[in-house]
C-alpha cells in the first residue's frame, strides 16, 4: 500500500527517460566536430563551439533581447494576472464566467492565431514592430499562467486572514501589502517562472510580432536553416539549461515552503 508497484515504477521512470534521453542528444551534439549537419553518430568531439558561442555578438544580442522581453512580459503578466485573480478568486457577479474564460483564452488558442491576430491589429493601427509589440504578444499568453496560479492560491487563502488584518487596524492597501502579497508570493513566483519560460522559448507568436528583431528562438530558427555551425544552437540550448537549473530548483523550494505554511491558518487539531 505504501510502496509503488513495479509497473508504476517502470512507467514513471520510462516516462522520465523519454523526457530526458533526447536532451542527452542535444548535449551530445553540442560537442560534435561536424558543423554542417547532424550526422549520427557524431564523427568526433570538440569544445570549440563553446568558444564560438562566446565570440558571437548576435547570440548575445538575441539572448539579451529574449531576457528583456521575458522579464517585462512576466512583470506585466504578474501585475495583470494578480489583479485578475484578485477580482475573480471569490467575487460572484454577473459575467464572471465569461471573463474567467477570457483570461484562459490566450493559452487555449493556438499561438499562431494569437500571433496573426496581433499582427493584423498592429498593421491596422499602424503600430510599427518594436520591442513592445513582442512584449505585448508574450504578456498576453503569460497572464493566464500567473492568473491560474494566483487564483488557486487565493482560493486556498483563508478569507479570515484578510478580515483579521483589517480587524487589527490595517486598511485595504496595508492588508494587501502585508498579508495578501506575502501569502500568494510563492504562487506568483511559480507562475512567473512558468511565464518566463514560456516567453523565453516562444517562437510562434514572436514570429508574427517581432518584425526584424531577433529573440533567441528566432535566432535559433534562422541559425538552424543556415548552412554552417549548427552545433552552436545546441551549445546555446545546453547553456540555457545549465543557467536555469538553479533558479528552477530555488523556486521549487520556495514554493514548497509556502505550501507547508499554508496549513497553519487551519484548525488546531
Amino acid at each position, binding site marked *: 500500500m505504501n510502496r509503488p508497484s513495479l509497473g508504476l515504477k517502470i512507467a514513471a521512470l520510462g516516462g522520465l527517460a523519454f523526457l530526458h534521453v533526447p536532451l542527452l542528444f542535444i548535449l551530445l551534439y553540442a560537442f560534435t566536430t561536424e558543423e554542417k549537419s547532424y550526422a549520427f553518430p557524431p564523427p568526433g568531439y570538440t569544445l570549440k563551439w563553446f568558444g564560438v558561442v562566446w565570440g558571437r555578438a548576435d547570440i548575445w544580442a538575441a539572448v539579451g533581447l529574449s531576457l528583456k522581453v521575458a522579464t517585462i512580459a512576466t512583470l506585466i503578466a504578474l501585475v495583470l494576472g494578480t489583479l485578475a485573480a484578485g477580482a475573480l478568486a471569490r467575487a460572484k457577479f454577473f459575467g464572471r464566467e465569461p471573463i474567467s474564460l477570457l483570461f484562459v483564452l490566450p493559452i487555449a488558442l493556438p499561438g499562431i492565431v494569437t500571433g496573426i491576430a496581433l499582427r493584423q491589429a498592429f498593421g491596422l493601427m499602424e503600430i510599427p514592430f518594436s520591442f513592445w509589440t513582442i512584449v505585448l504578444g508574450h504578456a498576453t499568453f503569460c497572464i493566464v499562467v500567473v492568473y491560474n496560479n494566483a487564483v488557486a492560491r487565493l482560493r486556498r487563502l483563508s478569507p479570515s486572514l484578510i478580515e483579521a488584518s483589517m480587524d487589527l487596524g490595517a486598511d485595504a492597501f496595508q492588508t494587501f501589502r502585508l498579508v495578501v502579497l*506575502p501569502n500568494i508570493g510563492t504562487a506568483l513566483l511559480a507562475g512567473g517562472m512558468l511565464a518566463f519560460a514560456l516567453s523565453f522559448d516562444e517562437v510562434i507568436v514572436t514570429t508574427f510580432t517581432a518584425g526584424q528583431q531577433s529573440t533567441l528562438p528566432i535566432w535559433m530558427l534562422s541559425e538552424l536553416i543556415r548552412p554552417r555551425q549548427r552545433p552552436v544552437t545546441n551549445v546555446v540550448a545546453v547553456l540555457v539549461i545549465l543557467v536555469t537549473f538553479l533558479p528552477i530548483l530555488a523556486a521549487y523550494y520556495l514554493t514548497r515552503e509556502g505550501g507547508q505554511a499554508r496549513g497553519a491558518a487551519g484548525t488546531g487539531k
Partner: protein
Amino acid sequence: MHAPAPTSAVPAVRFAGVARHFGAVRAVDGVDLSIAPGEFFAMLGPSGSGKTTCLRLIAGFEQPDAGHIEIFGETVEGLPPYRRPVNTVFQDYALFPHLSVGENVAYGLKVRGVARAEREKLAREALALVKLAGLEARRPAQLSGGQRQRVALARALVVRPKVLLLDEPLGALDLKLREEMQVELKSLQRALGLSFVFVTHDQGEALSMADRVAVFNEGRIVQVGPPETVYERPANRFVAAFVGAANVIEPDMAVALGAASGLYSLRPEKIALLAPGVPAPDGAAAIEASVVDVSYQGAVRRLAVRTTAGVALTAAVPASHRAPASGDSVRLAIPLGALMPMEAET
C-alpha cells in the same frame, strides 16, 4: 421575556432591531441587545442561528440591512473594521502563516506605526500574558492548537480593544485543552475588565463562563439572562431542549402531576429514582415508568424512560446508585417545585 441588560450609562455594544439577510436566508432577523462594559456575554445557539453573523456585524465585516448598531454610544454604520475599537479572535485563529508568532502579535501595532523596538516589547508582554513567553520566533505552523488560540488572543489584546469578539475560539480544541482554556480566558477577561462577546454552541461553555447568555434560534434571540436563569428557567421549549436537554412537561401531564395547567420545563437531574414501596417525598409526585435506555456518563447515569401514560422523559441519576437496566420498571419522584413554567405557546 428578555432579562434587562445590566444598567450602565453607555452600553459597550447596542443592537436595535438589527437584521442581516442573505438572499432568502434571514441570518439575523431583528435583534436587540445591549452588552455592558466589562461584561462576559455569551451567544449560544445551534448551527446557522446567526451567532457568527452578529459578531461580524459588530466587527464591521457585515453591514446591517436594517436596524442600528452602536459601540460605546457611537454609531458604527459604514465604519470599516479597521476603524472600530473592537477586535476578533477567529474560530480558525486566522494567524498569518508567513509571520512569526511575535510578528503576528505585533501586526496591529505595526500598522499603527509603532516603532519596532516598542512593538516587540509589547508583543512579548502580550505573549507573556497568555503564557507563551519565549515562543516569539516560531511560526504558527509549529504550534499546537491551544497555543495558536492563545497567540490569536494575544494578537487581539495587544491593540487594546474595548470589546473582544471570540467566535467559538475553543471549538477546534480537544476536551482537556478546551477546559483549560476556558479557565484561562475567564480569568484573563476578569483581569483586563474588557467586554467579551463569546460565541459558542457548547452550552457547558456558555454556562460556566458567561455573565449573561443570549440563546439564538433562527436569527433571533430567544432568551437572554444570567446562566442560572437560562438553565433553570428556560423561557420556552426551544431553550429547554437546547440548554441541558430539559424535559418539557405538557399541560395535561402537569395537571396529572398535581401542578397548575401550563407548560413547564423539568431538568433531568431533578428526577429521582424511588426504591420500591418508598413513597414520594413531600411536594413531589411519584410516577411509574419503564426504562428504555441507560447510558453511563461517569458521574451520572442518564435514563431514558417512558411513563405509563406514554410520555418520554430523561432522568439523570448519580452513577453510584444501583442502576436499573433497559426494560426495568421504575418509580420516579418529580418534585413539583422543580417544574419551571415557560412561555405559553401561541
